[in-house]
């Protein structure tokens, strides 16, 4: 369980938001929407233990991320995966490099096993045989999916995705919907931050919980899914 208590952020000389409470249960996919410049990326970095909130605290399984042991915060970050909004930072890398780096963060592992998993994950996100491609040669959608696959290589317990659904594009929504459900079924937590939720996902999720400038949707698990595949 990831809980945010009375979270507040002061930014650009003003209060961006204050007194927000969040509760993200385990083994569930969560969808947080908010308008541009509402602080979605900031919220994710606070929940990941990267940026201390100006007010309030974040608790993971009852332990404070910011007022507790620094080693605990590091262990928490090590168990998380993060797909940032796409930037030009990794343009010099190849798709294979993303996986190599991700494996490094996860402790290495056997080369053959890594390659095998890399191929499977790339195939899953529709990027089969792209290991040698440079990131600079990929479209935004391809970059997003490559980053997602690279993060999944480590098998993170919690996956934070910033603008992933919008970046991946409509043709990938069905794949993502299935993936998030599968991750949740395996006990992982997924937290997505987006400007808008796809309409059919919103229908499946039901009414969101309004929290400050955000709307928090809980995506249904396989048992609660309505007829048809949203996407």
């Amino acid at each position, binding site marked *: 369980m990831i809980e945010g208590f009375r979270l507040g952020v002061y930014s650009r000389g003003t209060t961006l938001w204050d007194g927000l409470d969040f509760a993200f249960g385990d083994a569930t996919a969560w969808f947080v929407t908010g308008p541009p410049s509402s602080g979605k990326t900031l919220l994710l970095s606070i929940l990941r233990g990267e940026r201390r909130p100006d007010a309030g605290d974040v608790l993971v399984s009852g332990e404070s991320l910011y007022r507790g042991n620094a080693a605990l915060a590091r262990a928490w970050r090590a168990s998380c995966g993060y797909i940032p909004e796409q930037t030009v930072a990794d343009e010099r890398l190849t798709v294979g490099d993303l996986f190599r*780096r991700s494996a490094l963060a996860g*402790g*290495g592992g056997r080369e053959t096993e890594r390659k095998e998993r890399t191929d499977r994950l790339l195939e899953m996100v529709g990027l089969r045989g792209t290991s040698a491609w440079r990131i600079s040669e990929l479209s935004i959608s391809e970059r997003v999916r490559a980053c997602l696959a690279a993060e999944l290589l480590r098998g993170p317990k919690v996956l934070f995705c910033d603008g992933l659904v919008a970046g991946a594009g409509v043709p990938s929504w069905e794949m993502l919907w299935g993936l998030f459900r599968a991750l949740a079924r395996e006990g992982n937590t997924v937290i997505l931050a987006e400007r808008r939720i796809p309409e059919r996902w919103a229908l499946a999720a039901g009414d969101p919980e309004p929290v400050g400038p955000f709307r928090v949707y809980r995506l249904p698990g396989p048992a609660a899914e309505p007829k048809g595949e949203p996407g």
Partner: protein
Amino acid sequence: MSERPSLWWIDWRLSPGPLVRETIGRFLLFCLLGFALLTLLLSGGVSRILADRYAITAVLRAEVPSGEGEGLARKAAALPPVRSATYRDPETAWKEFLRSYPGLDPLRGAGENPLPGYIEIRIRHDRLTEEDVEFVVSALRAVSQVDQVLAGEEWLPRLLSAGRLASWACWGIFGAFLAGFFLFARLQERARAVALAGDFAFLAERGVSAGRLAFLRAAGAALSGFLLAALGAAAGGGALFLSLRKFPILERVIGSPADLLLPRTIASAALFSIGVALLCSATSLLGWSAARAGRK
């Protein structure tokens, strides 16, 4: 996968291509530095040249028989600063004189050899100091059979101080190359830390401590620096050994190839490798902190 990632050789795993080129360049530089270091160590700067050219001559009294002269030479050779002591009997002295000054045979007109025997004493290159020369000269002067000791005492101090200056200049040039390596390596490390900053940020976002990353990078740099310097010194030593074998005349300036295997030579090469390891470690930490400061 384990929870705590291994960060050993992290730069190699993140960016192997440029590091291979960098490592080859450093190895070649360490070969040159190793060659220069061993040359300087064996030659003692210019000490061996000076010691090769400098000799003390102990002129014996005319009545000293050859057997006694040889005995004196053996005793002189046993003095700690002495490398060799050779007795020349009056007849040999006369022949040497005639080789140097041909046409002066008439000086021996009456059949008598006007020259006495003498002992030529050469000092070890590492003991060629005013104190040691004075010690040998005093010991020789105390012997009743010795008539005169010619040690060039009036010009020796100037010669020795010029030799010291030349040796310091040689070591200074070596030190300048080492300092140049340090500065260049620092720039390389900084450039690499900047190039890999995205990867380090990625790892930091996933719970890898920056301090641990910096420490293990520095430890890796120290270890690779030590190995490269040791290999470079060994290769430089090998090249020096072959040069001395191929051109024996160099032995007079540098020394015997066997000296390369002396414990003190090996210990000096090991110290050089440790010094390089410390420099590499320092450049890694400095490059890291400079790159991080640049990002802030």
